[in-house]
C-alpha cells in the first residue's frame, strides 16, 4: 500500500501536469495580449514566491531578503549585458550563479540568528541596497534604472507576437523551479527542516546541522530567484530600484502568507489571488487599494493562518474522511 508521502507526491505530479497543460494551451486559446503579458508577470512573481515559500514556509527562515536577491539577479544581468555585451540568454544564468554567491554571504551573516532577528537584518540589507542604488552611490543607473542591455530576441522572429516567446520561457523557468521545490520538499531535506522546526535540539543531536542546511536552501533557492530577476530584466528590458521598495516586498510577503506557508502549491495560489485582487482593486478601490490589501493581509493571517492552500487541503481531507467513513462498514472500528 502506498505510504502517505508517496500518495502526496503522486497528487503533486497530477496537479502539476494539469496546470502545465492549461498554461501551455493558454496562448492559443486566449488571444488578449493583456491577459498573456499579465500571466508573464504572474510567472515572474510566482518563481520568487515558490522559492520564498521553501525558505520561509519549509526551512522556517523568516528572511525578507528574497527581493534583494531577485534584484541582484536582475541588475547583474543588466550589467553583464551592457559591459560585456553578452546576450541575455548567457547573462541571466551567470547572474543567477552570482545571486547564489551573494545569498551565501548574506546567509553566513544572518542565519546564525533566529526568528525576528533574521527578519530585521534581511530587511536592513534590503533597505541599504535601495538607498545605495537610489543615491547612485552604486553606479546602477540611480532612480531611472538601467536599460538597453538586450532582450530574449523574439522580436525579429515573432514580430508583434514577441511576448508569446517570453511567455513560454517564463513558463519553462517557473516549471523548473516548482519541480525543484517539490524535490526538496518531498526529499530528505524537507524532512530535515520539519525536524529542525519541531525540535532544533533533537535535530542537532541526530546529526542535522541547522546552519548548513538552511544555508544550502538559501543558496539553492537564490539561483532560481536570481534567474527570475534575469528574466524580469529581459522581459521588461529595464531594471529600476523600485523592485526593492518596501511596498513591493510586503506585497510579495502577502502572496506567500495568504497563499499558505509550508504548502507545495501555497505560493502559486497566493501569487495568483493577490495579482487578481490587485487588478480588481485598481478599478474598484482605486486610491484605497492599499487600505483593502493591508486589511486583507491582517485578516488572513488572523483567521486563516495556514492560508488558502491550507484551508483547501483541510477541506479535501474532511471530504475524504466523510467518504471513507461512508464506504467502511460501521462495525470496522
Amino acid at each position, binding site marked *: 500500500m502506498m505510504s502517505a508521502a508517496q500518495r502526496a507526491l503522486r497528487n503533486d505530479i497530477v496537479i502539476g501536469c494539469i496546470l502545465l497543460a492549461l498554461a501551455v494551451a493558454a496562448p492559443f486559446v486566449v488571444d488578449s495580449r493583456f491577459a498573456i503579458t499579465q500571466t508573464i508577470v504572474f510567472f515572474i512573481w510566482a518563481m520568487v514566491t515558490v522559492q520564498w515559500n521553501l525558505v520561509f514556509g519549509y526551512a522556517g527562515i523568516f528572511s525578507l531578503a528574497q527581493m534583494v536577491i531577485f534584484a541582484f539577479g536582475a541588475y547583474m544581468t543588466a550589467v553583464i549585458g551592457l559591459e560585456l555585451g553578452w546576450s541575455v540568454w548567457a547573462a541571466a544564468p551567470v547572474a543567477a550563479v552570482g545571486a547564489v554567491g551573494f545569498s551565501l554571504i548574506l546567509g553566513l551573516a544572518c542565519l546564525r540568528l533566529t*526568528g525576528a*532577528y533574521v527578519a530585521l*537584518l534581511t530587511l536592513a*540589507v534590503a533597505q541599504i541596497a535601495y538607498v545605495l542604488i537610489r543615491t547612485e552611490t552604486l553606479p546602477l543607473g540611480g532612480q531611472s534604472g538601467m536599460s538597453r542591455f538586450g532582450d530574449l530576441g523574439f522580436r525579429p522572429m515573432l514580430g508583434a507576437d514577441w511576448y508569446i516567446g517570453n511567455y513560454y520561457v517564463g513558463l519553462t523557468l517557473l516549471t523548473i523551479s516548482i519541480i525543484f521545490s517539490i524535490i526538496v520538499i518531498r526529499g530528505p531535506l524537507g524532512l530535515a527542516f520539519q525536524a529542525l522546526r519541531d525540535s532544533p535540539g533533537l535535530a542537532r543531536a541526530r546529526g542535522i546541522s541547522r546552519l548548513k542546511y538552511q544555508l544550502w536552501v538559501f543558496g539553492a533557492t537564490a539561483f532560481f530567484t536570481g534567474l527570475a530577476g534575469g528574466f524580469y530584466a529581459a522581459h521588461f528590458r529595464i531594471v529600476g530600484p523600485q523592485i526593492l521598495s518596501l511596498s513591493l516586498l510586503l506585497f510579495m510577503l502577502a502572496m506567500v502568507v495568504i497563499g499558505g506557508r509550508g504548502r507545495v502549491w501555497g505560493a502559486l495560489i497566493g501569487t495568483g489571488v493577490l495579482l487578481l485582487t490587485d487588478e480588481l482593486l485598481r478599478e474598484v478601490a482605486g486610491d484605497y487599494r492599499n*487600505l483593502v490589501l*493591508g486589511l486583507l493581509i*491582517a485578516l488572513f493571517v*488572523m483567521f486563516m*493562518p495556514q492560508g488558502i492552500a491550507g484551508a483547501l487541503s483541510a477541506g479535501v481531507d474532511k471530504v475524504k474522511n466523510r467518504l471513507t467513513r461512508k464506504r467502511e462498514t460501521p462495525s470496522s472500528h
Partner: protein
Amino acid sequence: MDTLNQILVTGLTLGAMYAMSTVGLSLVWGALGMLNLAHGVILAIGGYTAYWVIAQMGFPLVVGLFGAMAMGALLGVVMYFGIVRQMLKSKDFETNIIIATIGIAIALENLLLRGFGGSAIPQPIQFSGGFWIGMVYVPWQNAIILITAVVFMGLLAWFLQKSRHGRAIRATAQNRDAARLMGVDTGNVYIQVLALAGALAAISGIMLSSMTTLTPGMGADPMIKAFIICVVAGLGNVGAAAIAAFALGMIEAGAQFQFGSHLGFPTLLVIVIAVLIWRPYGLFGREEVERL
C-alpha cells in the same frame, strides 16, 4: 572644534528621537514577544494628529502634544483588541503578528495619504532661535527635543522600577504564567504597554517632523532604525535600548558629516550587521539553552 560640537548637538538630538520610539518597541517585545511593524505609521499618525489639532483645529501647542499622545495610545489599545488578543492564543504568534501588523501599517499609511495628501506638510510644533553654551550654538528645537526625551525616559524608568504597574509589566515580561499566578491581569498589562509605546511613538513622530516635515511614509525609516537599535541592545532590554539609541544617534551624526548626509543610515546598518555577526543575541542579550 566646531564640527565636533555640531556632531554632538545633532547626535544627541537624533539619539533623543530614536530613544523615544525604540524604548516603546523594546517594551512591547519584552512584555508580549511582539514586533510591531505598525510602529512606524503610529509615529507618523502622532505627527499628523498634532498638525491637525494645532493647525486645522486651532488649539494651542500643548493640546496638540497631548492629543497626539492620546491618539498613539488609542491606536495601541485598538490594535490589542483588534488583533493581538486573538492571535496571542495562536501557534507561532511571533511570525504571524509581524505579518498582521504589516497589513495594518499598509492600511493606515493609505488612510494618511488620502486624509492629508502626499505632499510634505510642516509640523506646527516648532521652536526657532537658540542659545550659546560656551562656543556651541544650541538651537531651541534641539534642546527641547533632548529635554523632552530625557524627561520621558526618566518617567518611564521610575514607572517601570518603582510603581506597582511597572513592576507587573516587568514581571509579565520575565515569566507570564508566574505573573498571572500573582494576580496580575496580563491582558491589562498588554493594553498598558501598547498604549505607552503608542504615546511614546507619537511624541517621537512630532519630534522627527519638527526637524523635517510630515509625509505619510515618514515612519518607515525611523522604525527600521528603532528595530536595529533594539537588536543591538538585545530585544526586550529597555534600559540598554535607550543607551544604544544615543550611541547610534552619535554614530549616524558623525557618519553624516564624514561621508555626506545620505550615507548616515547605511553606515549605521553596516555597523549593526557587524555587531550581530559578533554577538548574535545583541550586546546585552542572553542565549536560552533549550532542555529536551
